[in-house]
């Protein structure tokens, strides 16, 4: 790290900070129940859900903090919050 003039930072550089370690519960998809509505992706405050080729979604556990919003908002009850084994 070098001090930049005035402390200017590179875009999107918080990617260096993997917040997945904060997680106590891990969200897990049940693709049998998922209707591919996309709500979970939108409501994630940590941009940890992305669309797969098959239109299902997947988690990025590097950053997911395990807040559980996705599970709470899923209309199909297709996300389970599982206790992390640490």
């Amino acid at each position, binding site marked *: 790290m070098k001090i930049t003039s005035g402390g200017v*930072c590179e875009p999107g550089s918080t*990617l260096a900070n993997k917040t997945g370690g904060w997680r106590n519960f891990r969200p897990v998809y049940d693709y049998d129940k998922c209707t591919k509505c996309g709500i979970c992706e939108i409501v994630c405050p*940590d941009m940890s859900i992305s669309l797969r080729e098959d239109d299902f979604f997947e988690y990025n556990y590097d950053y997911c903090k395990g807040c559980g919003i996705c599970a709470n908002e899923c209309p199909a009850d297709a996300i389970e919050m599982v206790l992390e084994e640490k």
Partner: protein
Amino acid sequence: MSKPAPKTYLAPGHRGCAGCCDALAAKFMLMGTGPNTIVVNPTGCLEVMTTPFPESAWKVPWIHSLFENGGAVASGVEAALKALGRKEGIKVIGVGGDGSTMDIGIRSLSGAFERGHDITYVCVDNEAYMNTGIQRSSGTPFDASTTTSPPGKISFGNPRPKKNMPAIMVAHGSPYVATTSIGYPRDMIKKVKKATEIEGPAYIHAHAPCPTGWGFDGSKTIEMAKLAVETCLWPMYEMENGELTQVKKVKNPKPVEEYLRAQKRFKHLFTMDGGDEEIKKIQATADWNIEFYGLQ
């Protein structure tokens, strides 16, 4: 499958609490603005959690100066873009908390709107000074407990109702003032987009329940935001050139009690003598909203 979510320009790795309202607000805001945007962000949770040097969660150009000057910095950004012939296609967005917008920064914002700069300002209203540890602001609702408006032997908490900030911005002659909520991402994205497409200063007031500050589980951020709308404590509307042009109807409003009971900041209303009378006063606010904005 429903239509895919617009791309956002906020990166993960930020330090917001699990279930953070400000992160959601910023995410949706950037979905509405797209990449050709310069963001001005006064001090507060959003600023602090997204930019711990040398990192930044922002993928659009972003500047933080101080707590109370967001409107002025945005004015300067817009003026500079114009002077340098670079304004075309670039949206200048201010985004600040209720404290920086409604309290300490209101002069600066008022100036920016009065002068008619082509900016969009988004207030992320989590109803207290969260970054400094949940102190009362003029956005804190009636009877809410904060660290500077605690209930006590002779107090039910915050003694004043929320300041009607959108009305103040309408009074500035803003062509577009809208309220929205992070509980309704598509609504927020749509309104931010519309605001940026309108020439002149536009104002979006986004209701943003904070799990840490209000005392509810981080999984309920969206749910709480929806409850505020469903109980009519947070009316969602658009005002164009001073006229109410759109209102989100609430078919069967839920009693405010349902909303209050879910949050620790109102817990005392259910344990203190006279709490039920207080809840009636809050219900009266919701009823007034229903009447005034025609929510039903």
